[in-house]
C-alpha cells in the first residue's frame, strides 16, 4: 500500500507543478501551526481553523476568508476544493484567477492543525498569525499620504530667506512604503540650503504629521507666488501600485522694496529717580504702534529687579508665576496705550526696570528691551537704625530700662 501512496503523492505533486506552470513565483509557509479558531493572514486572505472535530472524529475544518475594505469578510469556500487522502492528510486548494493558495496538513489534533501553506500568484506584502481568526484580522488597504508645505513668512522682500517645511501623514488604511519626496522648485526663488532631509521611507497608518523635509529658499523676484507643491511618491504594502500625493501651495508675496511692517515704540518712565527704602515707585510703560500695519502677538515682560517688590499695576497686567506679564493679541494701526506698574524698594542701591517686548510686525518676530533708566534707592529715614546689630540696641535699651527702674525704685524709697 505504500507504493500506492507514493504514486498519489507524485501525481499530486505533478498536478501542482502543472498548475504552477506559467506562474512566476510560489511562496511556501512551512509547518505553520494554527490553533483551533485562530487564523493566519496573508495580505487580505485569512486561513482559519474553524473546527477540529467533525461528526465526532478529529477532522479539522479549514476555511479561507477574504477581508473587505469596509471591515467585513467573505468565506471563499466557492473557490476552495478540499480533499483528504487515506493518510488523513487534508489538501485545500484555493484558486481565484491567478491567485492560488494550497494547504497540506502535516498533523492535527483536537486543538490545532500544523500545515504547509503555498501561495502562487500572490505577492505577500503582509502575513501574520491572527488570534481569534478572521473576525480579528485587519484589512490591509491602500496608503494615502497628506502632504503639507509651510512657509515661515508670507510677506517678504527680494533677498529674504524663506524656510519651507514639508510634513506628511498617512491618512489611508495601508502602510505607505518607499516614500520619496520631491520638494517642488518654484521659479522666482533660489534654493539656499537643505536643513532637514532624512525623512522616514515608510509611514504607518494614522498618527500625526511627520516632518519630512526642511529647506530654505531665497526670494529672487517680486510678485505674488504660489509655491509649487511638493510631491510624495510611495507604494502600498499589499498592492503593487505606485501612489503620489501633492502638497498644498502656499502663497508668498515678494516685494521689491521692504514690506510695510508694524513697529512698537516702547518707552518706560519712572515717576521719580530717587526714593527711600520702603517707598514706592511707579513706572509708565508707554506703547505706540505708529504704523498703518497692526502688530500681533505682543508680549511685554517687565523684569522686576531683585531688590524690588511688585505692588500693583494696570488691569491688563497679568501675574503669571508671580511675574507681571502683558499679553495682547493685536495692537491695531496707529495705536497707543499706557500701562503702569508700581514697585516697592526693598534694598538701597541703583536699579533699572528693564521691559522686554516681543511682537510680530507682520513679517518677523521682533524682540526688544527697553530700560527705565537708573533710579536710586536711598536709606529710609530711620534705616540707619536697622543697620546696627541687635546688641547696639539691646545694650542701651537695657541700660535705659535699668536706669529708669533704678530711678523709679529710688524715688519710691524717698516718697511717702
Amino acid at each position, binding site marked *: 500500500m505504500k507504493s500506492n501512496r507514493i504514486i498519489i503523492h507524485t501525481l499530486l505533486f505533478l498536478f501542482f507543478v502543472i498548475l504552477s506552470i506559467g506562474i512566476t513565483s510560489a511562496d511556501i509557509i512551512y509547518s505553520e501551526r494554527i490553533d483551533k479558531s485562530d487564523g493566519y493572514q496573508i495580505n487580505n486572505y485569512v486561513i482559519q481553523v474553524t473546527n477540529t472535530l467533525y461528526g465526532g472524529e478529529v477532522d479539522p475544518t479549514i476555511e479561507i476568508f477574504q477581508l473587505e475594505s469596509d471591515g467585513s469578510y467573505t468565506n471563499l469556500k466557492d473557490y476552495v476544493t478540499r480533499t483528504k487522502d487515506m493518510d488523513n492528510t487534508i489538501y485545500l486548494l484555493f484558486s481565484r484567477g491567478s491567485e492560488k493558495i494550497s494547504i497540506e496538513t502535516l498533523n492535527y489534533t483536537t486543538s490545532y492543525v500544523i500545515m504547509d501553506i503555498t501561495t502562487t500568484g500572490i505577492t505577500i506584502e503582509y502575513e501574520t498569525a491572527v488570534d481569534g481568526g478572521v473576525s480579528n484580522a485587519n484589512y490591509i488597504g491602500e496608503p494615502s499620504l497628506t502632504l503639507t508645505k509651510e512657509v515661515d513668512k508670507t510677506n517678504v522682500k527680494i533677498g529674504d530667506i524663506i524656510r519651507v517645511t514639508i510634513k506628511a501623514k498617512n491618512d489611508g488604511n495601508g502602510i505607505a512604503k518607499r516614500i520619496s519626496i520631491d520638494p517642488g522648485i518654484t521659479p522666482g526663488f533660489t534654493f539656499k540650503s537643505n536643513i532637514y532631509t532624512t525623512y522616514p521611507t515608510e509611514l504607518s497608518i494614522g498618527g500625526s504629521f511627520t516632518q519630512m523635509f526642511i529647506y530654505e529658499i531665497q526670494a529672487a523676484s517680486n510678485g505674488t507666488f504660489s509655491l509649487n507643491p511638493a510631491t510624495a511618491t510611495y507604494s502600498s504594502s499589499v498592492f503593487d501600485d505606485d501612489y503620489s500625493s501633492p502638497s498644498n501651495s502656499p502663497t508668498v508675496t515678494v516685494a521689491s522694496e521692504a514690506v510695510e511692517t508694524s513697529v512698537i515704540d516702547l518707552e518706560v518712565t519712572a515717576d521719580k529717580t530717587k526714593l527711600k527704602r520702603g517707598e514706592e515707585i511707579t513706572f509708565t510703560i508707554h506703547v505706540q504702534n505708529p504704523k498703518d500695519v497692526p502688530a500681533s502677538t505682543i508680549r511685554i515682560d517687565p523684569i522686576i529687579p531683585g531688590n524690588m517688590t511688585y505692588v500693583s499695576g494696570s488691569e491688563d497686567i497679568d501675574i503669571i508665576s508671580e511675574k507681571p506679564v502683558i499679553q495682547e493679541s493685536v495692537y491695531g494701526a496707529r495705536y497707543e496705550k499706557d500701562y503702569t506698574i508700581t514697585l516697592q524698594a526693598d534694598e538701597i542701591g541703583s536699579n533699572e526696570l528693564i521691559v522686554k517686548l516681543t511682537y510680530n510686525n507682520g513679517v518677523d518676530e521682533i524682540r526688544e528691551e527697553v530700560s527705565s533708566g537708573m533710579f536710586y534707592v536711598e536709606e529710609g529715614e530711620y534705616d540707619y537704625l536697622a543697620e546696627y546689630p541687635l546688641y547696639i540696641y539691646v545694650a542701651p535699651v537695657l541700660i535705659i530700662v535699668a536706669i529708669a527702674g533704678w*530711678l523709679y525704685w529710688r*524715688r519710691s*524709697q524717698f516718697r*511717702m
Partner: protein
Amino acid sequence: MLNVLIIGVGQCGNRILDSINKEAFGGGKFSKYYSRQKFPSRVETIAINTAINDLKEMRYTKAKDRIHIPNLHGLGANRIVGKQCFNENKDMIIRNISERGDFDVAFVISSSSGGTGSSFSPPLIQELKNRYDFPVYSIMVLPFREEGTIYLQNSAFCLKEMRESETDGIILADNQFLKNVGGDIQTAYDGINKMVAERVLFLLEALDSEMMMVTDLGDFKTVMSGGAGFATIGFAKGDNNTAIKTVIHDSLSPSGLLFSSDVYEEGSRAMIILRGDRKYLNIDDISSEIDKLSSHIGHVFKGVIIRNGETPKVLSVLTLETTAELDDLYTLAVEAIHMEKEKRGRMAIRKEADATFSKIDGLEPEY
C-alpha cells in the same frame, strides 16, 4: 564704727534731718539717685511728725524712716496737747527705734518753739535714757525773736524741760543769730539747716575716725558733760592761703558759731577738730591757738584728720558755763508769758460778753 541714731522731730527737726541726709549724699539735688550716703558711721535717721505734709516734703530721707503720728495734723504750737500726744504714741516710736539695733550715741533735733518738736523731744529723750545706756544729745533750734510770744514761751518751757530730762547735753542753734544767712525765710531756713547738717556730719567724722590724733566719742562725752548743759558748734574753712590760726579763730567767732556766745568768756570745755591737707595743718600754729583757748576756758580736746589735697576746715564743739543770750531769751519769754496771760484775761471778758448775749438765746423777737 559707731552706731549713730539721729531723730528729727517736728517740721524744723525733720528738715534739718533731711538736710543731713542730703549732705551725706553729697549735697546735689539728684545725688540720691547716683550716690551713696557717705556717713562715716552706721547712721539711722528717723523723722517724726504729727503733720504728714511736713514728712512728705522730705526729699532725702527714706519713707520708711518717717514716722507719722496719726490723727494729728500739727499741734499748732500747743505743747500741752503735744505732750499728751507723745505719751499716747511713745510705745510705737520706741518700738520703731528698738527695731533698728543698738546705738552708741543719739541726737534728737527739733525746734524749741513749735508744738510737736518742742513737746516731743524732752520726753522722747527721757524715754531713751530710761531704756538705753548710750548718750543722747539734743540739738535745739531757737526761734526768731519776732516770731511771737507763743514761740518764745514754748522755747522757755521746752529748754527747761529738756534740762530736766536726762539728756547728755543740749546743742543750741539759734535762728535769730543765723538769720543773716539768707534773704527770704525759706532760703534762711535752708541755709541754717545746711550749716547744722555740715557740722553734724563733721562731728560724726570726728567721733568715728580711725586716725591718730583724733578725738573720739569719749572725748565728746567729756566735753558735753562740762558747763551748764548747753553747747554749740562752730565751724570754719580756709582757703590755701588762710593761716590755720585764722580758721580756728573763725570757727569760734560769731561767723562760725550756731549760737551767739563769747566763747572765751562763756566756754567751759571744747573740742577742736582740724581737717585738711597736712601742709595746712601746722602743729605749732594749731597748738598756740588751742593753748590760747584753753587758757581762757577749761580743757580743749583736739583732733586732726588728714585729707590729702583738701583745704583746712575746723569744727569746734563748746559747752557753755553761762550764756547771756539765753538769759535774754528767758527775759523775753517771761514778758511773753505775761502778755499771753493778759490776752487770756481779755478772752475771759469776751466770754462774759458772750454770756450777756446768751441771755436772748432761744428767744424770738416779738413785733
